[in-house]
């Protein structure tokens, strides 16, 4: 449910995006109206038993995978550590490039796949979490589970949140904003971002083009070092900070924006 509510705050597809998504839906025999006319972004949540070809595309003749069907929308991988390792690793390059090149002896086919990856995982195989004290998982099982979450694919995930058990008494009184309100803020921030970047998203521009003051450079170097940030990780933190500043309506990236981006980058203790 949480990941489905994700789509409702996304801005509707533009004309060109809708045509791209409709072309793909048409090719795989999926309903075209929701994307072409309803302008709803695709949302794909494949089961974790999916094969590599099912995820990124392949076969004879080559067919689009879930990553391509999620083009301009959201690809949601629930229970991420349960996915086949090869299938997950195959997502790395498409995530960067926004397309998959299927090259075989007989044909070369390029599939677009500019999607947003959303993934969910339990803290350990039993789901209770090693820190809860109730966890019954053998240490090797936990290690194997976590191994899937680290490394190259994980380095490409920009935002990580530990979802805690909510406080039930506070829940009843909470009246959070609805999707429409949040969507307005999102659309305003996207407009600021696209006006500055010439129609592109922050994640699509070189991180060098995002200006950080000297104080922030130092802050990023210090905290990044402590986090063990890779070069790619550093570039991604800068872009996320710029996005947070856009949500704030700020011209320049401020310290609080950078700190929040670093916080979201942090890999949580399990």
């Amino acid at each position: 449910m949480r990941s489905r509510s994700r789509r409702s705050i996304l801005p509707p597809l533009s004309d060109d995006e809708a045509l791209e998504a409709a072309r793909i839906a048409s090719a795989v025999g999926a309903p075209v109206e929701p994307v072409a006319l309803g302008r709803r972004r695709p949302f794909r949540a494949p089961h974790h038993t999916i094969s590599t070809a099912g995820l990124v595309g392949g076969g004879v003749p080559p067919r689009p995978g879930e990553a391509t069907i999620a083009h301009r929308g959201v690809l949601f991988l629930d229970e991420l550590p349960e996915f086949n390792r090869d299938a997950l690793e195959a997502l790395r390059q498409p995530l960067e490039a926004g397309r998959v090149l299927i090259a075989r002896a007989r044909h070369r086919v390029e599939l677009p796949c500019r999607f947003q990856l959303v993934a969910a995982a339990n803290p350990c195989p039993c789901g209770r979490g090693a820190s809860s004290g109730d966890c019954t998982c053998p240490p090797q099982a936990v290690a194997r589970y976590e191994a899937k979450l680290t490394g190259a694919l994980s380095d490409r995930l920009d935002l990580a949140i530990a979802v805690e058990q909510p406080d039930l008494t506070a829940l009843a009184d909470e009246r959070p904003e609805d999707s429409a309100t949040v969507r307005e803020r999102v659309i305003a921030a996207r407009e600021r971002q696209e006006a500055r970047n010439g129609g592109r998203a922050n994640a699509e521009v070189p991180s060098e083009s995002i200006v950080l003051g000297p104080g922030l450079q130092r802050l990023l170097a210090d905290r990044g070092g402590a986090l063990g940030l890779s070069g790619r990780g550093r570039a991604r933190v800068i872009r996320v900070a710029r996005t947070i500043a856009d949500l704030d309506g700020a011209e320049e990236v401020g310290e609080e924006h950078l700190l929040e981006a670093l916080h979201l980058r942090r890999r949580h203790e399990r």
Partner: protein
Amino acid sequence: MARTFTILGVEARPVRVEADVRQGLPAFALVGLPDAAVRESRDRVRAAIANSGFTFPQQRITANLAPADLRKAGPGFDLALAAAVLAASNQLPAAALADVALAGELALDGTIRAVPGTLAMAEAAVRAELRAILVPVACAAEAALARGATVIPIERLQQLTLLGGPDEPGAAIPPSPNGARNHAGPDLADLRGQPALRRALEIAAVDPAAALRR
């Protein structure tokens, strides 16, 4: 000869269906790397032609799907194959097929069933400067999304005789976006007690290439 397309990935590649009808023992050979579904197309085409008021030629028929080195998959070639056989046996004017593309699966009674990929095919028909593309009625709306395409919806095989004439079915009109743009489904207001998650979802929504883990 009839023109159609095959879908490779999400792109449409042009395919020409040639048919040759000559004296000999009645036979129907299909060449040009057809897969099992395409090979079965012969039986559907035979029945659909006979059930649509045409005559299936009791002669030796050879059909070729060109280019011959491209693997052909799926039932989408049925309509073009039937049209090529009808033209080769002088039951349809070849000129009527010269500037159109056809895509559709045939039922045994001659009705035409939906096939995937008609939007990409209609776009490819525009690029190939064809006059029009004939698609199953059920696919007409999606194919008409292609900019600049003339999409003729076709319901039954008999309608091929109307092609190029005054009674040709009218072109499908591209559907317009329904302004509602409804975002039916769960609302973010129902996501309570998770301020950090709400915040991350909002940031991720602004930046479509940022990836999220929770």
